[in-house]
């Protein structure tokens, strides 16, 4: 019991912590012990599950890395995974470029510009987007978005074709990496908006009013008081959105017409596939070592998302000391 009760003496609970600390010790009741062990057991259960996830993924990935190249259905693992890893990062990056400014704008609109009475309702409306399952986003992407953006793609190609990004022959279906990125952007938008909105609402009233009292316009007030205060929140929200965009499977699998190339052109029909989407598309037909190779690509995806999440947490931990929050 010492592990659970010892830390409780040193917490913010203060004096009362010491009191119940003694009560626990004086009456070692069965119920108390059972309940404590039960909760502790569940907590450890989570650690066990995660350890199992890591062990199984690593364990089944090893054959894909060590086996002879001749036995591997998809060839050398690293050259197999490289285009997909690139596609994953590329599609997610494009999505973030679109989603972050728009989400921040929406969050500001809801928290500072919209009439106070409507703010909550408007927030719910944006949250509705988060409720749409990814397979429905996929259907929408193929049927509505791809045909709708094709004229825009043609225009971009005609007028801005000298930028390498927009060069090449425009895809006839509109199912390019840019379309997939737009779908991803729409999917992560409610996530980023929901978090940043809450952060913006928590800006200390005094900071805002001090800025306005010095004659700042609303926009200057937002730049002086709201944005610096919300910076850690903005970063963590964006990173969470990025994590979602990296791991999103179905929307990309349905919208993108894939190819295994590394290619920065966003309007052509030669699009790098993403890891997640490739697993979903190839897994049903995979056999033998191919399954191991796909699992190994899943491990690569897991490591990429893990790195993103860890970076986010590191940034927040570093920034929070300087933020207005304290």
């Amino acid at each position, binding site marked *: 019991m010492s592990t659970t009760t010892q830390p*409780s003496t040193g917490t913010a609970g203060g004096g009362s912590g010491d009191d119940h600390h003694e*009560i626990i010790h004086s009456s070692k009741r069965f119920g108390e012990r059972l309940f404590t062990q039960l909760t502790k057991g569940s*907590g450890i259960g989570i650690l066990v599950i995660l350890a199992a996830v890591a062990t199984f993924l690593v364990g089944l990935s090893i054959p894909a890395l060590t086996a002879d190249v001749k036995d591997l259905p998809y060839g050398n693992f690293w050259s197999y995974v490289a285009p997909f890893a690139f596609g994953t990062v590329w599609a997610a990056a494009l999505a973030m470029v679109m989603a972050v400014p*728009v989400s921040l704008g929406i969050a500001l609109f809801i928290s500072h510009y919209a009439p106070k009475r409507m703010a909550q309702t408007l927030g719910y409306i944006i949250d509705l987007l988060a409720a749409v399952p990814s397979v429905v986003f*996929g259907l929408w992407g193929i049927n509505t978005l791809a045909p709708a953006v094709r004229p825009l793609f043609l225009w971009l190609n005609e007028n801005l074709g000298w930028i390498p990004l927009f060069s090449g022959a425009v895809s006839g279906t509109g199912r390019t990496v840019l379309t997939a990125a737009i779908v991803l952007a729409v999917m992560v938008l409610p996530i980023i908006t929901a978090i940043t909105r809450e952060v913006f609402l928590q800006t200390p009233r005094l900071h805002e009013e001090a800025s306005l009292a010095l004659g700042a316009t609303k926009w200057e007030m937002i730049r002086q008081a709201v944005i610096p205060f919300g910076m850690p929140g903005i970063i963590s929200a964006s990173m969470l959105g990025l994590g979602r965009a990296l*791991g999103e499977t179905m929307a990309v699998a349905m919208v993108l017409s894939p190819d295994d190339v590394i290619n920065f052109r966003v309007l052509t029909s030669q699009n790098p596939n993403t890891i997640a989407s490739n697993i979903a598309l190839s897994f049903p037909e995979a056999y033998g070592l191919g399954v191991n190779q796909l699992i190994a690509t899943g491990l690569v*995806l*897991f490591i990429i998302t893990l790195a993103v999440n860890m970076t986010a947490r590191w940034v927040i931990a570093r920034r929070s000391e300087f933020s207005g929050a304290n």
Partner: protein
Amino acid sequence: MSTAVTTPQEASANSLIAGQLPKYTPWATLLVSLGIAAGLLNSVGHFSITAVALSGIALFLVGMFALSSAVEGIRKAKDRLARQMVSLFFLVALIPLISLIAGVAVRGSERLDGKFFSYSMRNIVGEGGGAIHAVYGTLIITGIATLVSVPIGMLSAIFLVEYGRNGRLARSITFFVDVMTGIPSIVAGLFAYTVFSILFGPGTKTGLAGAAALSVLMIPTVVRSTEEMLRLVSNDLRESAYALGVPKWRTVLKVVLPTSIAGIITGMILAIARVIGETAPLLVTAGLTSSLNTNPINGPMTTLPVFVYYSYVTPGIPQEPYYARAWAGALTLILIVMGLNLIGRLVAWRFAPKSR
């Protein structure tokens, strides 16, 4: 651009509103710029609603900025631009939402009939058939996942808030729950697939494996939301219970949990809503079948999202009935998820503790 000339003159006529654009200016500028855009595009021969709207709005932003910086100064102009951009972004976000919901509602309602909810796809080629097998599959798999993750998640959250108290174990659980939140859904699916292949032979596809994958995704959400709600319970309540000699575990069960139960239930419902629409992990774990299978430990089981996916990407001939069923399934999914969200919010709003 007649307004650009007249407004400053009008403004300077009255010293009280000098250096300020009248209230109707933005609307007038918007109309004028839309008109100019329409006229220009029409004369070039590229007239379309989208093109007019896009270029008109761009023209409006530029024109308004120029107008305002000339009359009101650059700071006011920036302020206006920010307000317009922010409102514009909000409207832009509504476009996909409206087009998506309208599109799914229109195309989905074609086949959303009694037959859709009473027939499976067994021996169905072409017209007819339904998704009752997928509805059952969704309910069973999500139900098992909920039964597994809710107790584990809730008890762990109680441990973190009430017992862990920043000890090493609590800190590592918090850290790994964060890690778990970031697991991509397809990776959770691969994990469940590998576990079940090792236990029950390679290529095993069962509903239980799907439920395991969903649990991995659901547990961190449940822990997070429960933890947040438990932390909101005021320490005064706990201390009052201790002062009356109530042991800690009874305090948690009889005081802390009832106080926060509304928020916890809302968190559960939102967690269910999140996993019920998952496709990718079920694609690799639960497989596909066209018959009704209610046994989660034997044979593949189709869920609604997987049904929608396969109906759409691998239609039979003729394609139209398969597409119609896919859209009907998508509409059902949206209705379920939005209904769950609505119930969650209602619970939170109706049973919220009246502390103040």
